[in-house]
């Protein structure tokens, strides 16, 4: 079913504005998506009607807030196909989710000489936590190389895998290039040598149907703000037996069963990993974001975004001076490119003058940029509310900018 873009757009108040004298074209969705009215309303409703701390108060407001908070956990469970909602842990974002695994699973189950495999495509948040862990405990970080088109080299990955591999932590879909990694194959191959797998789902959860049970991944990390939800909220999915075996992350309220000065016993999952008062309003409003996605239809959104990606590639592929970056066969709706003889920052500024928001730079993937021999790219990334007309305006603007230095 084709989606009704106009009716979707009408649900996003922020889209209806002019920027620098032109209608806003928001193509920075891989950085963060805009929020539908239902999400904004849910935040307001929470503070106006239900605000109170959860899991504690013996009063009606606390009950209501707790109930809604836990309803979101159930929605997230359903969204990623997890077996039980106790396997859903709320964090501050993908970054915190990955750090949580590095600090807890990493310190308990990865030792000196053990190996962790990541890929050249990783976002800094799936590199630095492992470097920190390796520095601490003497484990070794191995990197899967990529081809010039931005795809993992499978044979090289197989060579890296061994009985020393304890964890494979890879991005499901690259934020800088859009490449979709063959994660099912990666997971099966890693499991065959006894390694666990963490998927960085920051980009994939918004563009693909991610089912943790079908994939059989051990961990999945993602951020609400890239899924039409609030900022400051993320999810870590982990298999129950792993989460139970892992030591806690932060210490404090909520995560304990009983505290005495001699000994503290910990709460059960997921609470063991949710110390302190969480982002209650954000969690509650995230349910509305997931409802928005489900009611619009994941498959419909993905088809629409892919259509926009194809269209932009079509419009720009023969334009002189355009250098697409990342041309993997399987991609999410991310169009990364450079213009011959121009710096991406300048291109971004010229697009901004036309009201077009894109991201420029290294996209927090400096090792990837170094591998590709470039400083950065200009990145346009699409969401459910973007239109073919916006793609046309964008392509015209890019064509004009490219002509400056490419006669």
């Amino acid at each position, binding site marked *: 079913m084709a989606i009704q873009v106009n009716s979707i757009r009408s649900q996003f108040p922020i889209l209806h504005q002019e920027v620098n004298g032109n209608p806003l074209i928001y193509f920075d969705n891989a950085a963060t998506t805009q929020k539908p009215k239902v999400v904004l309303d849910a935040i307001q409703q929470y503070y106006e009607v239900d605000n109170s701390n959860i899991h504690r108060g013996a009063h009606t407001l606390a009950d209501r807030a707790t109930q809604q908070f836990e309803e979101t956990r159930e929605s997230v469970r359903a969204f990623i196909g997890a077996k039980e909602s106790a396997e859903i842990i709320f964090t501050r974002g993908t970054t915190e989710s990955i750090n949580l695994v590095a600090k807890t699973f990493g310190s308990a189950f990865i030792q000196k000489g053990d190996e962790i495999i990541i890929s050249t495509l990783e976002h800094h948040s799936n590199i630095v936590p492992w470097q920190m862990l390796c520095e601490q405990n003497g484990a070794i970080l191995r990197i899967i190389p990529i081809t010039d088109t931005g795809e993992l080299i499978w044979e090289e990955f197989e060579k890296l895998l061994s009985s020393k591999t304890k964890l494979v932590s890879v991005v499901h879909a690259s934020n800088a290039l859009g490449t979709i990694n063959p994660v099912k194959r990666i997971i099966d191959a890693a499991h065959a040598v006894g390694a666990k797998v963490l998927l960085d789902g920051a980009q994939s959860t918004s563009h693909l149907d991610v089912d943790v049970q079908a994939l059989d991944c051990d961990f999945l990390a993602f951020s609400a703000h890239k899924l039409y939800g609030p900022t400051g909220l993320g999810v870590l999915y982990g298999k129950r037996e792993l989460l139970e075996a892992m030591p806690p992350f932060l210490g404090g309220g909520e995560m304990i069963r009983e505290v005495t000065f001699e000994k503290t016993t910990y709460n059960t999952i997921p609470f063991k990993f949710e110390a302190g008062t969480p982002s209650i309003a954000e969690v509650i409003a995230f349910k509305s974001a997931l409802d928005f996605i489900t009611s619009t239809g994941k498959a419909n959104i993905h088809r629409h975004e892919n259509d926009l990606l194809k269209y932009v590639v079509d419009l720009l592929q023969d334009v002189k001076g355009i250098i697409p970056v990342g041309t993997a066969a399987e991609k999410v709706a991310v169009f990364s490119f450079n213009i011959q003889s121009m*710096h991406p920052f*300048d291109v971004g500024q010229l697009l901004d003058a036309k009201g077009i928001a894109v991201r*420029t730079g290294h996209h927090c993937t400096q090792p990837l940029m170094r591998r590709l021999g470039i400083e950065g790219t200009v990145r346009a990334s699409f969401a459910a509310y973007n239109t073919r007309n916006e793609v046309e305006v964008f392509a015209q603007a890019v064509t004009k900018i490219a002509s400056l230095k490419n006669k």
Partner: protein
Amino acid sequence: MSTIADIQNEIVAEFEILGDDRESTIFYIMELGGNLEPYPEDLRKEEYIIQGCQSKVWLVAEEKEGKVHYRADSNTDITKGLISLLIRVLDRRSPKEILEANLDFIPRIGMGNILGSQRSNGLAAMMNQMKRYALAFQTKQNA
């Protein structure tokens, strides 16, 4: 020779002709970068880089007959254009003139608004570094 204030007035008048159109203003700034004296490759070193975010700036200065001569470059064309404006205003003047200069042409041409915070901060860092060079030469002259 015209004063720093005269040249700033000239620049403001030139930008007024461009009016409010952001795109043509940026195109114009990018073209201005072409006026920069070529930057010597042997001075393209880490130690001459001014901290910026996405755009890099190299800046060196030397003293010639009591005047400061600046040379600079950037990896982005917009920044190069901005540098060329700063150089047009400050180059080949005495340290005293440079240190006393009230550099107000940037806000007067509404540049902060066009550039956004990243580039505006970079531009401020560049101006500071130019004044710092002038101060160093003045200290040397007075020594």
